[in-house]
C-alpha cells in the first residue's frame, strides 16, 4: 500500500504525478493520492478581494486564518478545482479515480481547535471563529471499499470535525495519519524542493537519509513547511509506516524517482 502526498505549492505537476500513478496502479500497487492546493487558494482569495490572512500561533506556527468565508474559498480551490483536475487527468489515463475530501463519508475526521492563540501586530490574541483542526481518524472502510472495487481515491483537505463541521487541516499531517491508518509500507511526500536541505539555498545540502535516531536532528534542520513534513514523517514512522520519502515534485516521474530513493529517505 502506497500513500502519495503532493504539495499545494505553485505549479503542481499534475500530469507527471498522474502518469506515475497510472503506471504504479497498473502494476497492481494499491495507492491513495493526497494533494494540497494552498497556492490555488491564495490566488482565488486575492482574485475575490479577500487576500489570505496568515496568523502565527504563540508557538510560532504559521497558519491560514480560516473563518467561514475563507473556508468556502478553501473548499472551492481544493475540492472544486484541484481535486477534479487530478481526477480528470487520471481518468484520461485510464485510472478510475474518485475524488473525496474529508467530509465525504467522514473519510478524514478530527478535532477542531476551539480557539487558537496568535500573535498579530505584537498583540497576543485568541481567535475563536477559526475553522482549523487536525486529522485524527480515517474511514478505512470507505477507502478499502473503493480500492477493492478498482477505484483510486484522491483525497484532499478539508477534513470534518467530530461535530461535523468542515475544517481546514494540514495536508502533510493528514497524509501521515492516512498512511498509518492504511498500514502503508511507504509514504511519499512530494513538494517543490529536492527534500530536506541543511541549507535552504544550497540544493547540494540534501540530507539523503534519516535513520530513526536522527529524527530530532532532522527536526532542528527543517524549517517552515518542511518542518511539518518531517513532523508528518515522524508520526508515520511511529505509526508503523516502513519508509517516508520527501521527494521533488518537479522531477520527471516524481513518484518513481522518490521510490528509487531520490530525495530524503526517512525510516
Amino acid at each position, binding site marked *: 500500500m502506497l500513500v502519495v502526498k503532493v504539495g499545494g505549492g505553485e505549479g503542481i505537476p499534475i500530469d507527471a504525478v498522474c502518469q506515475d500513478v497510472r503506471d504504479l496502479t497498473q502494476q497492481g500497487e494499491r495507492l491513495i493520492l493526497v494533494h494540497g492546493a*494552498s497556492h490555488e487558494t491564495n490566488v482565488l482569495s486575492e482574485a475575490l478581494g479577500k487576500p489570505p490572512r496568515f*496568523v502565527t*500561533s*504563540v*508557538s510560532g*506556527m*504559521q*497558519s*491560514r486564518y*480560516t473563518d467561514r468565508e475563507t473556508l468556502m474559498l478553501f473548499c472551492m480551490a481544493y475540492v472544486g478545482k484541484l481535486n477534479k483536475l487530478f481526477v480528470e487527468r487520471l481518468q484520461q489515463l485510464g485510472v478510475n479515480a474518485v475524488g473525496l475530501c474529508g467530509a465525504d463519508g467522514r473519510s478524514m475526521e478530527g478535532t477542531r*481547535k*476551539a*480557539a*487558537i*492563540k496568535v500573535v498579530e501586530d505584537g*498583540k*497576543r*490574541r*485568541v*481567535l*475563536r471563529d477559526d475553522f*482549523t483542526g*487536525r486529522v485524527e481518524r480515517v474511514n478505512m472502510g470507505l477507502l478499502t471499499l473503493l480500492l477493492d472495487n478498482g477505484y483510486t481515491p484522491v483525497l484532499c*483537505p478539508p477534513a470534518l470535525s467530530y461535530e461535523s463541521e468542515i475544517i*481546514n*487541516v*494540514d*495536508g502533510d*499531517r493528514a497524509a501521515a495519519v492516512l498512511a498509518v491508518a492504511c498500514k502503508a509500507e511507504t509514504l511519499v511526500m512530494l513538494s517543490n524542493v529536492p527534500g530536506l536541505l541543511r541549507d535552504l539555498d544550497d540544493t547540494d545540502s540534501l540530507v539523503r537519509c534519516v535513520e530513526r535516531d536522527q529524527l530530532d536532528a532532522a527536526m532542528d534542520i527543517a524549517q517552515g513547511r518542511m518542518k*511539518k513534513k518531517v*513532523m508528518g514523517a515522524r508520526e508515520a514512522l511511529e505509526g508503523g509506516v516502513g519508509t517516508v520519502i520527501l521527494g521533488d515534485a518537479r522531477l520527471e516521474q516524481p513518484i518513481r524517482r522518490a521510490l528509487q530513493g531520490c530525495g530524503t529517505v526517512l525510516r
Partner: protein
Amino acid sequence: MTSCPECEADVPVDNDLETGEIILCEECGAELEVISEDPLKLALAPDEEEDWGE
C-alpha cells in the same frame, strides 16, 4: 481597572483593549482573554493546543 478571574487581584487595563486580546495578570501570571469590551469581561485564556495550522 478590573479584577483577575483567577486570583481576583486588580488588573490594570488600557481602554483600547479589543475582544479576543490576551493580557497577563501581574499577580498570578494567568493569561486572560478579553471576552467583551463593554462591559469589560475577562476569562482565563484557553491553553495552547498543539498546533500545526495549514
